[in-house]
């Protein structure tokens, strides 16, 4: 594990846009004064004629993207998750989603790992507000390569897509050749006692938890689920049936987010006990990502504890 490389998922977004920009001239990128930190700058430098800064005015930017989509462009909107999935929600709902327009949204600075900027800039509700919208696809990639693949997939898909990524470097745990199938979970580790379902860059903590659990004699299945919507119902039902207990892990409010999406499937297919790792109805705060992961209960240690707790509730 010492050879693990670290890279921010936002870099995967920036690289994918540059790559796809060369292949498809319809791709345009819109920014809102956060061009560098969202990595939209890399596209802007390469294709200045296809980049538009809309200033600090996100609502307008979202609907301008909708207008560009109406004349055949493939617009990517780049700003922080809070400013897009919160502030411009009505624009996304009533214009992009209602008319099913081909708008792509890059939500940067997802989760508390943004760190020092604190609660105002940490998107902890964006997955919830995006996944309730009809026609919307919601993807939260786990690392650099998965982000690249998600963005490339979204460029080819016709319809609204929200891709969430983070600011801080995270371990690269997937390989360039790993499959990325929208809506399908990737099996990282097979197991029989419990299933850990991961969403986003917390995957690394899940992998460490699986190792610890193995040493304790607990066989944990680990599913990496990049797509929150449409969720992989089949993989969830199978995991519930075969392992009898589920722990979901996300860097987002547990209310309304990925864990809720999983629970909606579990109770309708094969009800089993669940535990939810994520933000527990609180705002974030300033700190290093490590400090915040500890404070908000997102580390491998917390995942292990949740697994041990859910196993007590598991039916004989």
């Amino acid at each position, binding site marked *: 594990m010492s050879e693990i490389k670290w890279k921010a998922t936002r870099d995967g977004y920036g690289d994918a846009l540059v790559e796809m920009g060369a292949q498809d001239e319809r791709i*345009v990128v819109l920014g809102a004064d956060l061009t560098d930190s969202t990595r939209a700058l890399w596209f802007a430098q390469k294709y200045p*004629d*296809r980049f*538009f800064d*809309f*200033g600090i*005015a996100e*609502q*307008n*930017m*979202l*609907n*301008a*993207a*909708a*207008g*560009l*989509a*109406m*004349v*055949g*462009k493939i*617009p990517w909107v780049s700003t922080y998750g809070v400013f897009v999935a919160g502030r411009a929600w*009505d*624009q996304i709902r*009533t*214009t992009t989603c*209602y*008319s*099913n*327009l081909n708008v792509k949204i890059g939500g940067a600075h997802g989760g508390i790992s943004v760190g020092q900027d604190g609660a105002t800039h940490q998107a902890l509700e964006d997955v919830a507000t995006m996944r309730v919208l009809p026609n919307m696809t919601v993807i939260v990639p786990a690392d650099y390569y998965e982000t690249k693949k998600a963005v490339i997939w979204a460029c080819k898909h016709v319809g609204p897509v929200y891709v969430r990524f983070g600011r801080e470097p995270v371990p690269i745990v997937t390989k360039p050749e790993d499959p990325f199938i929208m809506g399908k979970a990737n099996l990282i580790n097979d197991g029989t006692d419990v299933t850990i379902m991961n969403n986003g860059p917390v995957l690394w903590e899940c992998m460490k938890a699986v190792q610890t659990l193995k040493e304790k004699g607990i066989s944990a299945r680990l599913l990496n689920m990049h797509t929150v919507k449409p969720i992989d119902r089949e993989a969830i039902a199978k995991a519930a049936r075969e392992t009898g207990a589920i722990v979901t892990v996300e860097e987002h409010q547990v209310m309304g987010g990925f864990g809720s999406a999983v629970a909606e499937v579990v109770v309708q297919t094969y009800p089993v006990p669940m535990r939810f790792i994520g933000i527990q109805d609180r705002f974030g705060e300033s700190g290093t990502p490590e400090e915040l992961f500890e404070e908000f209960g997102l580390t491998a240690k917390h995942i292990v504890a949740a697994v041990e707790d859910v196993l007590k509730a598991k039916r004989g």
Partner: protein
Amino acid sequence: MVDQAKVEELKKIAHRIRCDIIWALAHAQSGHPGGSLSATDICVALYFYALKHDPRNCQWEGRDRVIFSKGHVSPLIFSLLAESGYIERSELRTFRKFGSRLQGHPNIECPGIEVGTGSLGQGLSIAVGVALGLRMDGKPNRVYCIMGDGENQEGSTWEAIMSAGHYKLDNLCVILDNNGLQIDGWVEDVMGLQPLADKWRAFRWHVIEIDGHDMAQCMEALDQAKQVKGQPTVIIAKTVKGKGVSWMENQAEWHGKAPKPDQCREALKELACPAEYFDF
């Protein structure tokens, strides 16, 4: 000088449209008469004089784009589409009814509607994107956005105005139906906007102020807007909410309330609409 024969022809169309608006509202018993009637004349000049479009081919590449930011004037919008030939006039009977393509606020199920609207303060931003995209491709198509004055209270409207001025979108023309009223009363009492024309000018727009019920002025304004280079144009059309039905004129209460059947007959009589309109 505008063609006087064309003026007379457009006035006749505007009269039919006003009859259609009341007729659709009579069948729906729900909807927005006030703003529909105030925006009728300038929108007739747009659809039947200035606009390049082909009602038999909604997706024609060469068409100008119309975005109704004030989506609530759906009685007017669907009447314009029926008169143009996008839909049958008889379909107006289904307006606001379950299963109809003519929803309370327009959506893309209806031919001739480019995008669903109704949440105020959103249309101009869409128009900005459309205008930007068409210009990128070197297309000559023009973009028209029909707005109410009340939605100038939305912050997002000013974001859009700012960006159109910044990007010098001279293929974009806003028609501002300046009837001075909104649901809660006079715009100036609810949340004052004056000096409105100066505000748009300050955001780098070309402003044309007209009487929005003078057909010749409407035509001239639309002609002039096409000639403006290097900046977008707003036509501030001074209008009367409820225009054409005396007891609706300048009454805020007729913003979003449909007249009862008896009142519809009264309105149709005042407008001197033909007998076939009295079928409800």
